[in-house]
């Protein structure tokens, strides 16, 4: 077993909006070891981004952490000041977003933006920072790096901008790279390049990755562990093989049944998940998936199920599993 890098425990986070309290994260726990590649998948609005940002000590207004702890690389993130956090961000943990255009500053050159991060977090001087920036651009596969340094973001293609973002994120060789839908805006052939690059850099630098995506193909390809989120809850967690070949939550099962696969030899009818996603302003009392679940029982509508452990690192919060356990115990008695 490796060293624990991330340990989020019972995190609760709400947005206090004029319309009411949006319970964005409802008792989230995540543990990651050094070198892990964790995938977070789930519906839009299920809390994937908010979870990842909270790890960097970022809670967008009007959000507030109302319970739980966030430990990262020996720091208790939720008790740190903004100043202390600034030392960690971009240094020990970095993030890349879906749209590189919104996170790159249009009025500064690529070179300026990479050097800024290096100057902020290391004691390199300007010349050394410049050399390091060229080195980083080469590392992420950008040709003619010296020329690119002088260019502005709009002069680069989408794929190249995302490479620049990765270069900036890696400037200080972080322990953890959070990638929030890093390839959604890119074409598949460019996406393949970027994902390949991330995995190669992971091997070289030895960092851990949290990959947030709605694309089950991407997590199948690059993650070892997967957290499936639904309405502010991790409803199932397991190894990639657990999740794909032995899913134990009805939402995970439904999700897998509803996607077609390019390599299917026969044309099967898709089995959709009926209904619509949860309104977090008025979440159901019990299991958040209950209103859409075809196996829903009475208890599901009333109380949130506890986690049932299928194996040490495979668990799921579903009343069906609790019932199974209960019946097994009954038989034994």
């Amino acid at each position, binding site marked *: 077993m490796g060293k624990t890098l991330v340990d989020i425990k019972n995190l609760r986070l709400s947005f206090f909006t004029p319309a009411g309290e949006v319970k964005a994260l409802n008792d989230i726990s995540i543990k990651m070891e050094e070198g892990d590649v964790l995938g977070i998948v789930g519906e839009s609005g299920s809390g994937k981004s908010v979870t990842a940002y909270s790890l960097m000590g970022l809670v967008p207004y009007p959000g507030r952490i109302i319970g739980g702890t966030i430990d990262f690389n020996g720091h208790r993130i939720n008790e740190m000041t903004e100043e202390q956090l600034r030392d960690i961000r971009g240094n020990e943990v970095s993030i890349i977003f879906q749209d590189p255009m919104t996170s790159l500053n249009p009025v500064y050159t690529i070179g300026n933006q990479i050097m800024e991060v290096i100057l902020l977090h290391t004691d390199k001087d300007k010349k050394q920072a410049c050399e390091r920036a060229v080195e980083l651009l080469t590392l992420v596969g950008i040709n003619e790096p010296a020329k690119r340094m002088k260019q502005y973001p709009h002069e680069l293609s989408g794929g190249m901008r995302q490479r620049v973002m990765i270069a900036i994120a890696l400037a200080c060789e972080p322990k953890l790279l959070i990638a929030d839908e890093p390839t959604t805006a890119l074409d598949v052939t*460019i996406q393949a390049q970027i994902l390949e690059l991330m995995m190669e850099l992971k091997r070289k630098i030895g960092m851990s990755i949290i990959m947030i995506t709605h694309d089950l193909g991407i997590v199948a390809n690059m993650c070892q562990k997967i957290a499936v989120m639904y309405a502010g809850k991790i409803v199932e967690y397991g190894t990639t093989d657990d999740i794909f070949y032995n899913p134990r939550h009805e939402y995970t099962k439904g999700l897998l049944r*509803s996607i077609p696969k390019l390599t299917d030899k026969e044309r099967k009818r898709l089995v959709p998940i009926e209904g619509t996603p949860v309104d977090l302003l008025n979440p159901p009392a019990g299991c958040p998936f209950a209103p859409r679940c075809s196996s829903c029982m009475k208890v599901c509508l009333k109380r949130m199920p506890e986690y049932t452990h299928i194996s040490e690192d495979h668990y799921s919060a579903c009343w069906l599993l609790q019932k199974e356990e209960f019946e097994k115990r009954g038989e034994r008695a």
Partner: protein
Amino acid sequence: MSRLLEVNNLKQYFRVGGSIFRPKYVKAVDDVTFHIDKGETLGLVGESGCGKTTTGRTILRLHEPTDGQIIYDGTDITKVDMMPYRRRMQIVFQDPYASLNPRMTVGDIVGEAIDIHKLASDKHERKERIYTMLERVGLNSEHANRYPHEFSGGQRQRIGIARALAVDPEFIVCDEPISALDVSIQAQVVNMFEELQQDLGLTYLFIAHDLNVVKHISNRIGVMYLGKLVELADSYELTFHNLHPYTKSLISAIPIPDPVESRTKKRIVLEGDVPSPLDPPTGCRFRTRCPYATEICAEQEPEFREISKGHHVACHHVEKIN
């Protein structure tokens, strides 16, 4: 099966500046030829900016074609007055948020098309028709009095489809109709497209970037690259026996939602980015990224040839590569 649509050597060039003497053009669609049979779904895939949307819109004459011919149900519609065809040929857009007027009720959004084409003789018939359409896409009559913002993404996409269906079309261009939807909702909409096709005998041109979905819904698939159709074949054939180097890399780049398959999958990672459509490479437009390119690829544009029955490819070296 009979042909519903035939597109011959279609070109769509957009003027994007330059001088009067030396105007500059984007060759968004350049010499594209294909057909679609009645009741069939033709999928169209390719990288962003390769001309998929432009192809769909030009067929509907929402852009006037620069050159080429569009034959719909036996009639050349390249230059005719489109009014009689507007009803028969519809389009569903990607963005279910932007394409619906926020100030109109769902009933009026669907009803507007009925009014334009005078498909209801009185108020009662109009209402009945609106309700029928809403039910057909899995909504109900109560929804008619509500506004678009009261609906989820998937429901809004259904409203867009109900609007298209309200005029009894035969042919629908579906331009990324599921891209903006949650994965768990996509299957609902895909199934609905399939059911409507079976029940109403609709014909689709289905544009999407998710090949997992396109392969599922299409009978045949066309692959575009920088304004050119580079390969066209039966969807099974295109997935498992593709011939063009670009198709091969495209298919190999799709992440398969299956860990074991993706671990064993061979990936052809293409170098470089897509060239600018303002200044596309000479000869074969794919040559700058193609691992098989030779001199002839830079000199001559490869012909779009039928290699085996119904399987068309534009590449000088198909026989050698495969």
